[in-house]
């Protein structure tokens, strides 16, 4: 490429990010499809809970099954039955309704916290890689400081400082996650920084901010998305752990971690209080991990070409088909005789 006056025709230089393409590739991975299905079901559950809670004041779930907040001391620690498939807790509240409502808290925390980590990490990582030097040193050392403190310990201290609430939980786990994203984004951005289309944009005199957020970030975002899917599970577990320890979501908001904490004290008399919320956490996290696993495989070029079992191919049958097919198509106008247009070598005879 010549040095002067390269037109800033970005589109020509872009690698295909290919988010859609990636998603269509996912259909070959049964694991990630199952994961996607789980997540979809959970999102529906959470949306239902949210709408029901804020718009209808829990009317729908009460009508369908039972009010997750309604206490009934006569029903204290009732066994799982047709009326209460997951039993009741120590205030006689229906566990099934509470477990359904718990999906809202779990998913919200996961999505908001991961969103905070994502945005923070992408900005820090991209800025760090793009500017390099002291900026890079300062940002990366800061990130390492955060990284050195165990996530749960950092989150507990944060909650102790700002008080236990669901909003602080978002922020706590959002901050805890930033280092991982920043590192992924930085290493991606470093490899993109010297590519031709970035060079071209620089030579064209685009402002640095434009280059950073229109050229570098979009092209390096894919691995960060994988990181997000894979860390979603960890965040949901972490937030549940915090609630379990009493620092997170406060009663009476239904939350799986909080329910487990109640279940712990009641385990001898009421195993169901400790079993079902845990299973829900497991399923949720499993869903995200399955999806993330598939996504990573699809995006990793080394991992994509999977062998197709030979048994799937009947070579002779296939050969026949090939012959029939190629002969057919080659009789189209594009026959070789008409293609001798001088673009190839002239005069074959050299002897």
């Amino acid at each position: 490429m010549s040095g002067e006056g390269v037109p800033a025709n970005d589109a020509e230089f872009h690698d295909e990010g290919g988010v859609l393409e990636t998603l269509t590739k996912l259909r070959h991975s049964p694991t990630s499809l199952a994961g996607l299905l789980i997540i979809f079901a959970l999102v529906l559950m959470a949306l239902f809970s949210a709408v029901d809670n804020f718009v209808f004041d829990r009317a729908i779930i009460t009508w369908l099954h039972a009010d997750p907040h309604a206490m009934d001391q006569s029903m204290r620690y009732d066994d799982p039955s047709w009326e209460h498939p997951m039993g009741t807790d120590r205030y006689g509240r229906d566990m099934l309704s509470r477990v359904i409502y718990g999906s809202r808290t779990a998913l919200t925390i996961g999505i908001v916290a991961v969103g905070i980590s994502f945005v923070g990490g992408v900005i820090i990582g991209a800025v760090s890689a793009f500017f390099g030097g002291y900026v890079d040193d300062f940002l990366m050392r800061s990130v390492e400081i955060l990284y050195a403190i165990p996530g749960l310990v950092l989150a507990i201290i944060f909650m102790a400082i700002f008080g236990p609430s669901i909003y602080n939980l978002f922020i706590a786990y959002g901050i805890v996650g930033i280092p991982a994203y920043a590192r992924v984004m930085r290493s991606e951005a470093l490899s993109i920084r010297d590519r031709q289309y970035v060079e071209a944009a620089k030579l064209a005199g685009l402002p640095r901010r434009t280059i950073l957020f229109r050229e570098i970030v979009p092209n390096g975002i894919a691995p960060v998305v994988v990181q997000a899917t894979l860390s979603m599970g960890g965040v949901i577990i972490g937030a549940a752990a915090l609630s379990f320890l009493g620092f997170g979501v406060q009663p009476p908001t239904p939350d799986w971690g909080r329910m487990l904490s109640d279940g712990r004290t009641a385990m001898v008399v009421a195993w169901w209080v400790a079993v079902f919320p845990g299973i829900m956490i497991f399923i949720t996290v499993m869903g995200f991990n399955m999806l993330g696993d598939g996504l990573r495989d699809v995006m990793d070029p080394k991992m994509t070409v999977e062998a197709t079992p030979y048994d799937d191919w009947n070579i002779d049958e296939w050969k026949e088909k090939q012959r029939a097919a190629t002969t057919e198509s080659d009789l189209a106008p594009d026959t070789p005789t008409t293609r001798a247009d001088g673009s190839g070598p002239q005069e074959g005879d050299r002897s």
Partner: protein
Amino acid sequence: MSLLEVENLRTYFFTPAGIVQAVDGVSFEVDAGESLGIVGESGAGKSVAVKSIMGLIRDPGRIVEGSVRFDGRELTELSEAELRREIRGNEISIVFQDAMSALNPVFTVGSQLEEVIVENTDRSPSAARERAIELLDDVGIPNPDRRIDEYPHQYSGGMQQRAMIAMALACDPRLIIADEPTTALDVTIQAGILELFDEIQETHDTSIVYVTHDLGVVREVCDRVSVMYLGRVVESAPYEELYRYPKHPYTQSLLNSVVTPDEILDEINPIGGTMPSAVSPPSGCRFRTRCPEAVEECVHVTPRARQVGDSHTAACLLYDESNSHEEPTLREITNQTND
């Protein structure tokens, strides 16, 4: 009887995108002490062909047809264990293109040489070390007794390739396959490596199969040349013969595109177009889509190798006096019945 006889070899790769017919009916022979060059563009299936000889094709690839006879033994019928014990390393060895990645980065050059020696001979570890030093000396590595304990990354590119060649020589094989051994090297270093191959052939009387895309390289080391295009051998001849009287249009255009000092730049004719995909190669003659001489018939007839000179064969309809339809396609059969 030749030392190595490859006949109608087909090696396919079964990928989700379809079957890659990397090698599709390749035949060649190598006599004892002879060196054969296999020439072609990248993607012609040269590497796959020679790796097939040693049974080095891995999933999703497989040899689907053909035979490889080495010293009268059918190699395609040997089990993995037999190949490992009796053929690989001690009878046939291979030098890869990129020595840097072909050597294990976390072991010393010496320990990798010694492992090969111990695995393929009944030498003791200490004897293997002596032999390894001797080998490094043979391939022209200075201070071999010191450099044997160094890691591959401490060697220069040329040195790494020499170490690789030392490994190939370790058990006195009868055939060495060199898979583009100089492609990754500077021209000056390349010359040294080519000299080394010449020397090996003379002193050890080893047969060499030399895979390359560079006809100039072939001139240095090879007695005979087979030209490959898209999974098939299109022409085969002694080097001088091929260079003076290329018969196949592909060979002709290949020779045309070689830059020689006495040629003026605009006389060079690169081959037009790109090689079609080996997943759905053209029917009939595979070169026809880029061939200046192609005729309608090339679509239907798969040309067979024809004698066109003294031990010179070419697979092109131009030299097919009989014009007989060797492998009629389905389409053709139906056409004929319709007419």
